[in-house]
Structure formats: C-alpha cells, structure tokens
C-alpha cells in the first residue's frame, strides 16, 4: 500500500477505534486491530510516542516488530498503557482516518484535526488507523524528554517510524478537541492524516495547535522520535499553542516545527476553522504524512498536500479562525485557494475588517455604513472634525482671560464633575444636541450667589450652573462635521461668552447630579 503502514494503520484505526477512542480500554482493541493491519513495526513506535512512560515501553515493543508482526506486539496491553498519549495520538490518527467512523476523541491529545486530516488521507486506503496509530503512538510520548528515550529504543524503521510518529503526534496533539474535528476530516486523506498526526503532535506540544499538516510531514521524516516529542508536547500543552507552523524538516529538530503545523490542523479541527495553514507547511505535512511520499523528503507545498489540507481543513474549519499565535495558522476554507499568499492575504483582510468594525462603533453615525471606502471617508471626516474641534476649543481657551486664581485642583475637580455633564453633550455628535445639559451639580440660586466671587468649588458649581446656560450655545459645537456653519455660530458664542458677566441665576434642571456636597467629596 502506498499509504504505507500508516495508512493502513489509520484506516484500521478509524474503523475500529472510533468506538474505542472514548475509552482507553476500548482503544487497545482498536489499536490492536489497527496494529494488526499495520504491517510495520512502526506501530510500536507509535505507542511509544505518547508521553507516558509506558508508551515508551510500548513503543519499544512496537518498534521491535519490524513487520506486520509488530502489530501483534501492540497487544492490547500495550495499548492500554499508552492510553494517555499514545492513545490519543493514535486516536487522532485513527480518528482522522476513520473520520467517518468516529471521532473518538479518546485521543484528545493532539489536535485531532491535524491528525485527522492526515489520517483521513491515509485512511482512505483503510490503513489510516494503523498509520495514524503509529504516528500517534510515536508521538504520544511527546513529552520532550520522554519521547526521545522511548524512541531511541526502537529499531529504526524510518518510514514506519516516521509515519507512526506523525500519526502519534497528531493524536497526541489533538488532545481530544481536534480529534473530534479531525476525525471527520481525517477520513480524507490517509497520507495527509499521517502527516497530520505527526504534525499535530508536535504543534500541540509546542504551542499552537493549528494543526497544520506541515508537521506531519516533518514528523514522518523525522521519525517517531522527533514527532513524538512534538506530539507529546502538544498533548501536554493541551491546547497550548503550538509553535509556529514552521515546516519541520528533518528529524527531531523539526518536531516542534511540525507540531505547530500539525497542531494547527488539530486546532483547526477544534476550532472548526480551517484557516489556511501555510501552504508550504501543508504541503510538507501532506508529504510527510505519507511515509512513502515523504520518503522523498520534501515538504514542499505541493498542491496535493495543500489540497488535502484544504479539504481537511474544511471540515474542521467551518468556523472561527484559530487563535493566532506567533505564527498565524490559517486553514483554507472550502473552495478557497490554498496558496500561501492568498492565505496570508485572507488573514490580513480579516484583520482589517475587524478593525473597521471596531472603528464603526467608535465613529458615531456609522452603523449603517457598509463598505470600506465609505467607512474610511467617515472616519477621516470624523478625525478631521475632532482635530478642528480641539483647535477651536483651545483657541477659545486662549482667548479667555484666565482666572486670576488658577486653581488646578479646582479645575480638575470641575473637569471631573463637568465631564459627567459634558460627556452627554460631547456624545451628541449628531446635530440634535439638546441644548440643555443640566449641570450635574444641583446648584441652586443660593449657591450661585454665595460662591460667585470665589474660585472654590462653589464657584465651580456656579459656573456650571451658568454653563448650563451656555451649553445650548456650545452644544452645537459638537455638530461640526454636520454643520460646518456651526463653527461660525460657535465663534459668536465665544464672543458672547466672553462678555457674559452674569449668567441667569436660575439653575437649569439638573439631572441627577450630585449635590454640591458630593462634589466636594469627590475633590
């Protein structure tokens, strides 16, 4: 089978495992099943991947089998052990592979998404489970420290190991969330699934579970060990973001790189949001997933892997974008180009539209505006009007003869108090500014008279009361953009204000402002 052991593995796993995924115990049987399918001994590797130390043993056992017999070595017991990571890893793989069968998120570990995708691909052949398992198993011992040890124990069946590793990784990475998603997706490409598994394992570990396929690609290459680490980490991180979805080339070293990619996938599955993973990564993953394919070792973002990814992503991604980490993992949505450039472009466009929406809230009167151009025009107008307002007000302020007693604190207090009253006026950017914004202070005529000469808060209150009268004049100030003529009116007002010596004594209605005593307290 072209898919390689992994594919078979995955396929099998899928079919069997979906049920079992949910419970570790069941897993073993699945594993067993799948392992049986897997002709490679890499199965053993898979098991070892898991973070569990037990996995290590399993892996060892698995690895020891260099042939189909290895499958047998995956005795349920073995599988039982690595329930944790291994299973997860495997589950992911199988899940993916089975996609259809189930998503036993038993292997929650890795982003199932990534695993799945990879697995799916491989599963097609029916080998997915096995392959994924392999990968998962290998990745399971994602614990950075653990994995290497475990992996080292097995015989190097590079292809098998790689596959298994990738599968494991993805499994582990999925950690369950993605698994579910991936499961569905994974049904697709076995080859990819393999890769995904690998990738997922690593990415999960690393940080982001973007579940990009890239990882699987690398993982496969790197062999179980490498990918295992990644997957383990991914698993451990449990949703931590995987590192950047850099392509993981080579073994070991790149695991982390792979994991981001695979994580991406997994994550995507979870998030149901398939942004486009970096094209290259995807391709890498895809390539890696298939041991056979990978053997070539190139992770280029070939169209095939990307497509696979895209498809897989699609399943997962239906929804929201995965959270963006240092490396933005994007999954291509269905029917969208998966070119890396367009992916990045899409991300960028989404960011921009996000910000435009935020600006829409800021700029008053823009809720109905649609379209970037119009919105931008509005924003520009608003900013211009605000700047002009500042200029105008500062000019007004400059022309006003400052009080002799420049009581900063008093001013501050007044400002604070005023803000309450004024905020309402300033908010009224639209024309209908109600003329009267009653000063919040309950200044009564008595206050006014008492505090008239002073600069204390009383005077402030007095001023506010007086201001309330002026509010109508200045209220129109806010409408600058809409009423350019208001500027002239304002100028008149300024002049008038300068000459206002005595404001009417009657205080305007005050809306729930604090009584003077309160104001003082705030001071």
């Amino acid at each position, binding site marked *: 089978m072209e898919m390689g052991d992994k594919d078979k593995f995955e396929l099998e796993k899928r079919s069997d495992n979906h049920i079992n995924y949910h419970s570790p115990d069941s897993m073993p049987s699945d594993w067993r099943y799948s392992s049986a399918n897997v002709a490679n001994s890499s199965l053993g590797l898979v098991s070892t991947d898991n973070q569990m130390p037990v996995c290590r043993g399993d892996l060892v056992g698995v690895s020891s089998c260099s042939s189909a017999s290895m499958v047998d070595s995956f005795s349920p017991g073995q599988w039982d052990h690595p329930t944790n990571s291994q299973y997860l890893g495997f589950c992911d793989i199988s899940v993916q592979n089975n996609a259809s069968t189930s998503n036993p998120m038993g292997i929650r570990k890795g982003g199932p998404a990534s695993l799945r995708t990879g697995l799916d691909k491989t599963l097609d052949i029916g080998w997915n489970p096995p392959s994924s398992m392999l990968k998962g198993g290998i990745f399971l011992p994602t614990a950075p420290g653990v994995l290497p040890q475990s992996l080292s124990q097995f015989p190097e069946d590079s292809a098998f190991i790689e596959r298994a590793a990738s599968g494991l990784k993805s499994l582990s990475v999925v950690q369950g969330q993605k698994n579910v998603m991936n499961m569905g997706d994974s049904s697709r490409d076995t080859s990819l699934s393999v890769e995904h598994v690998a990738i997922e394992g690593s990415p999960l570990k690393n940080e982001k579970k973007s579940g990009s396929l890239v990882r699987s690609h690398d993982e496969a290459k790197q062999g179980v060990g490498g990918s295992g680490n990644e997957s383990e980490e991914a698993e451990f991180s449990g949703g931590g973001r995987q590192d950047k979805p850099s392509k993981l080339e080579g073994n070991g070293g790149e695991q982390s790189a792979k994991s981001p990619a695979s994580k991406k996938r997994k994550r995507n599955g979870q998030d149901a949001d398939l942004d486009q993973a970096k094209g290259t990564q995807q391709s890498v993953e895809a390539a890696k997933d298939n041991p056979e394919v990978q053997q070539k070792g190139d992770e280029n973002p070939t169209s095939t892997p990307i497509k696979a990814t895209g498809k897989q992503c699609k399943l997962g991604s239906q929804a929201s974008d995965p959270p963006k980490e240092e490396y933005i993992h994007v999954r291509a949505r269905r029917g969208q180009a998966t070119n890396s450039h367009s992916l990045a472009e899409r991300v*960028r*466009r989404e*960011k*921009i539209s996000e*910000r435009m929406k*935020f*600006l829409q809230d*800021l*700029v008053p009167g823009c809720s109905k505006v649609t379209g*970037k*151009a119009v919105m*931008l*025009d509005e*924003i*520009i107008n608003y*900013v*211009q009007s*605000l*700047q002009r307002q*500042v200029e105008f*007000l*500062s*000019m*007004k*302020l*400059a*022309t*006003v*003869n*400052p*009080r002799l007693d*420049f009581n*900063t604190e008093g001013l*501050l207090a*007044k*400002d*604070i108090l*005023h*803000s*309450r009253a*004024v*905020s*309402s006026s*300033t*908010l009224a950017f639209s024309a209908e500014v109600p003329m009267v914004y009653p000063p919040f202070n309950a200044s009564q005529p008595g206050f006014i008279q008492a505090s008239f000469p002073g600069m204390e808060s009383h*005077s*402030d209150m*007095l*001023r506010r009361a*007086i*201001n309330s009268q*002026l509010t109508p004049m*200045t209220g129109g*100030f806010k409408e600058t953009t809409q009423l350019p003529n208001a500027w002239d009116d304002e100028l008149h007002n*300024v002049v008038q204000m*300068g000459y*206002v*010596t*005595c*404001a009417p004594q009657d205080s305007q209605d005050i809306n729930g402002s604090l009584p003077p005593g309160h104001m003082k307290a705030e001071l």
Partner: protein
Amino acid sequence: MNPHHHSSYLNPNSLKSRFTKNFLRSLIKINKQTPFPCRPTEMFQRCHKVKTAADKSLACAVGSRRVWSRAMLCKIRNRALRRGPQKPPSVRRIIINNRTMKKGFNCLKEKMNDDQEAGIDQTSKLRKLVPGGEAMDLCNLLDEAAHYIKCLNTQVQEIHDAERIESLGKD
C-alpha cells in the same frame, strides 16, 4: 456612557485625568509666561501655545504606548527645536525618529497593498491625519486611528470643560 466616563474620571490614572493635569499645568505656565495679551500677535502666539499644549499633554498622557503619541511628541519637539534657541527638547526625540523611520521602511510593501484595498486617497488622507500614520500598514493604521479617535474625544471634552469653566469665571 456616562457611568463609563464617570469611572474613568474618578480613576486618578485614567487618560482623562492625566491629560487634564498636564493640560492645566501647561495652561498655568502659559498664563504666567504671557500675561493676557492685548495685541493680536500675542494673542495668536498664545493660541498656538495653548493648542500645542493640548496636543502635547494628550500625547504625554498616552505615553509611548502608541505610535501616534510617539510621533506627535516627536513632531512637537522637532518643531520646538526648529523654532529656535529655546530650551532644547530631550534627546528622546531622536530615538523616536529612528523608530518611526524604521517602521516606515518595513511597511512600504504593505502600504502599497493597503492602498489598493481601501482606496489610495482615503488611506493617504488617514495617514496624514493620524500622527505617525505614514509609517504604518493599514492594519496598524486602523488600530492607531481608533485609539487616536478615542483620545481626541477625551481631549475635546476636557478642553471644552476647561474652556467653559474659564469663560464662566472670566466675566
């Protein structure tokens, strides 16, 4: 919105209170330096000083957290330097310059895309309006613009209040 403003005012560290403090202090200084002028030239100078004070205190209140505030401070200091042998601004200005320039180079490519996306005229207009906007890509530019709008609103409110108080007390 009122409650929101209210809380922000009461918060001694809010942008508004920081801005108000700075602004009032600078107003006091201006008033001390230039007694209320009678001649139009003096008045003009005073107006300009007040406006600069308002901008500067806003930028200082925001601090270096934002590109636009840094750019604005830089601009003000450069202007002051260029003005003449007055008190030289701090060396910080130079540092700010470098930062801005570097950003500009990096964003050139993105800026071209931005223009295509959102309309060249508008983007360039926005860049001119927002201080420091020349050196940002559209994404960041929108971010900065949003924050700038928020701060401008605050500034307008504060100056408006101060002006009202002043004018009232002036009688």
